């Protein structure tokens, strides 16, 4: 369990000698609020490129270079109903660098997070305008990646009745263009004084030394009430459908399903296996039957988001085949629901999930993410063995029941159009 530094400010230290790096993340978490998403996103750009001590991007980058090419980034994300702003700094382990980089890393985080560049108590007007413009341009250009475009459009369609979930965690170009310096300053004060904070540190470190450094960041006490993470919506009788056109050669057909599941209980593991069998693994029915056998798609896969009771199928296809592909996808889900799959396939899919999971324990990012999830959601498996045991307990009947709880709710097609 994380250690409490102050009410609402917690620390999770994961000492390990496996890696040559130390990864430090500072997570600021608040209930998801579409009104503040854009300001929080722009805040990440401002904090990431300057501080009072390093007033230009060049100065800040030079400091990272001096710290043996430390990796630094601040981003936003959402976990169910929680909006999270996370600063991550990875440095070469002290024993590899031969210097006290860990101490320097905490000093750097204190400089960027707690002493931002605020001449006259405001963000510099020119810097603000430039970073906002860059983000507006960046958000607009997301449509250049058609897979991302289709994924976001499906999410908006699926969550049409819930603005909180319909909007991406980083907001939209239109909303970004309207953000004011006062809103960003307010967002800054909110993360520093009100957001719940979790600091994770993973690497070859001494927990006592890390505790002292983390406490030294000086975050004050705040509300420690637990945040509501999971979110659900009622199942609708009808399927929402939308079609957009773009000058693309390859069309994108994305489907959104409501998933009946508990959070990290038996239903969750059954739904995970059902999703993997349906489209979430290289052995899945979508990959085998839609891509390989029918040659109807270059990619066809599903991904489960249990915290939102949501599953998305993504495919890349020819526009003209969309109805055939949709029917074929429905057929694959039906096969899972009715148990028309071999025992070997089920065993292999489960085995694939276990091997992926075991290999993930070689990744600092995964390990740190598990620490975050454990702090947010009860029931997250503590280690590989408990995960393996839960997956192992999922049988054919449980997979069928889980698949029967997957209901198509939204269908989005990004179709090609003839360009002149």
């Amino acid at each position, binding site marked *: 369990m994380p250690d409490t530094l102050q009410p609402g400010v917690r620390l999770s230290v994961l000492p390990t000698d496996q890696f040559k790096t130390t990864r430090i993340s500072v997570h600021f978490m608040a209930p998801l609020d579409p009104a503040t998403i854009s300001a929080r996103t722009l805040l990440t750009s401002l904090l990431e490129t300057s501080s009072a001590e390093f007033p230009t991007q060049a100065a800040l980058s030079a400091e990272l270079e001096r710290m043996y090419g430390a990796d630094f980034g601040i981003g936003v994300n959402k976990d169910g109903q929680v909006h999270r702003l996370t600063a991550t700094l990875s440095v070469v382990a002290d024993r590899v660098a031969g210097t006290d980089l860990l101490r320097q890393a905490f000093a750097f985080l204190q400089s960027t997070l707690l002493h931002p560049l605020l001449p006259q108590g405001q963000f510099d007007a020119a810097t603000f305008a430039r970073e906002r413009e860059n983000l507006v341009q960046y958000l607009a250009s997301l449509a250049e990646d058609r897979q991302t475009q289709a994924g976001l459009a499906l999410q908006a369609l699926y969550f049409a009745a819930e603005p909180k979930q319909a909007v991406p965690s980083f907001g939209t170009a239109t909303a970004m263009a309207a953000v004011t310096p006062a809103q960003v300053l307010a967002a800054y004060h909110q993360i520093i004084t009100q957001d719940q904070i979790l600091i994770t540190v993973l690497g070859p470190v001494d927990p006592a030394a890390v505790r002292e450094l983390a406490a030294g960041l000086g975050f004050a006490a705040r509300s420690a009430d637990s945040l509501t993470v999971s979110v659900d919506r009622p199942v609708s009788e009808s399927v929402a459908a939308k079609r957009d056109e773009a000058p693309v050669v390859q069309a994108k057909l994305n489907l959104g399903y409501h998933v009946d599941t508990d959070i990290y209980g038996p239903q969750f593991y059954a739904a995970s296996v059902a999703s993997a069998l349906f489209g979430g693994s290289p052995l899945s029915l979508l990959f085998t039957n839609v*891509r390989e056998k029918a040659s109807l798609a270059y990619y066809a896969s599903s991904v489960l988001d249990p915290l939102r009771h949501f599953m998305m199928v993504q495919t*890349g296809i020819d526009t003209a085949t969309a109805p055939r592909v949709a029917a074929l996808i429905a057929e694959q889900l039906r096969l899972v629901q009715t148990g028309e799959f071999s025992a070997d396939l089920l065993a292999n899919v489960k085995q694939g999930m276990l091997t992926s999971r075991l290999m993930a324990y070689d990744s600092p990012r995964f390990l740190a993410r598990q620490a975050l999830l454990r702090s947010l959601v009860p029931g997250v498996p503590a280690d590989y063995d408990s995960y393996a045991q839960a997956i192992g307990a999922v049988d054919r009947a449980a997979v069928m029941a889980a698949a029967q709880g997957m209901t198509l709710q939204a269908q989005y097609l990004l179709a090609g159009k003839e360009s002149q």
Partner: protein
Amino acid sequence: MTTTHYAALGETLVQETMDNGLRVNIVPRPAFHETFAQLAVDYGSVDTHYRDITGAAASDPAGIAHFLEHKLFEKEDHDAFDLFGATGADANAFTSTNRTAYLFSTPRAVKENLATLLDFVQSPYFSAKTVAKEKGIIGQEIQMYQDDPGWLLYNGLLNQLYPGEPIAQDVTGTLASIADITPELLYRAYDTFYQPSNCTLTVVGPVDPAEILALVAENQAAKPQFAQELPQRLDDFQVAPVAPARTLHAAVVRPKWVLGVRGQTPLANDLAGTRFQIATQLLLEMLFGDSGAWFQQAYDQGLLDDSFDYDYSVQRPANYLTIGGDTSDPAGLAQAVQAVIAAGADQAQLTPERFARIKQAAIGKYAMGLNAVESVASQISAQSFSQVNWFDYGQLLQDTTLAAVQAAAARWFDPAACTTLTVLPEEAEHA
């Protein structure tokens, strides 16, 4: 069996060449769960003109190496992919300009999967029927790239740097070129390039190197013997003019601009070549990196943003630089980058202080890149056809001098070897 310890990195490299010429690299990683293995072939999309094993000159359709990679998984009565899947291993493959590689990662059944990897790559099966079906799948892949603005920019630039040369062809080929692929052409290319002496096997993970070597030796001894003659390629390094600057319109949201510099001398596959490669990478970082005065000024002027990037690509027989990104002001960015190129070796940003800092960062980033089993295996494999292995890079970085970086600037910055590509959004459509 040769074992080399790299104490500063905490790494060990075990190497051995099999009787049939297959070279094996093993990096034991006892603290990890994952074993990653990659069988690499020194064969890529540029290798379309060569002498086949009878000595006759051969010319293949663009995209054949990638096509062959796809097809190798499928056998007469099974798909090799399923054999990996049955043990829970993840298998994959990729083709680049110079390389084809087959790989798997797994926490268990390493030996079984290793045998599967060697066996499926070394037993080709191409039939008219399966070749025809593959054209549909690869056709989809080709189409997908055409919707990717990044591909458009990169592929477009290569066509200007190397007009009409094989390196400018896309790895996947075109719908027209792959239509010409037949089982006979696949077998001819396979027999030429997939000889064990033109392949390397890299294994990284919690393995016992002696056991792995014994398994590979036994597996290879049971295979048909090959000629062990390295393929003879008919396309050599060329000095040729680049095509002039070009602007095209496409379905992009943001304008994009990129400059390419065509390398005027071949890059040797040896220590000197590797040193030059490192010096060039440091040069780009010193001139265009985000800690420099040039970047800061261009950033403040709104000429570039975080998408700005630069790279040195070494792709036999060619090598070239690319510099560019998304920009609201392509002309302004062009002017700023071209001013740096025009200064040649006389660069104000090449100071000893900046050099020391950027070198320190490069050394740190190199060490950070040694975390993941997969990235170590990929780097060791990528370097396996060079005379310098990846674990020697750290020391070479350490040894690099500012003088070497200045020499690289003098060698690279010739405006006549440069060309640019601008991609602009299409004109708004009127109903």
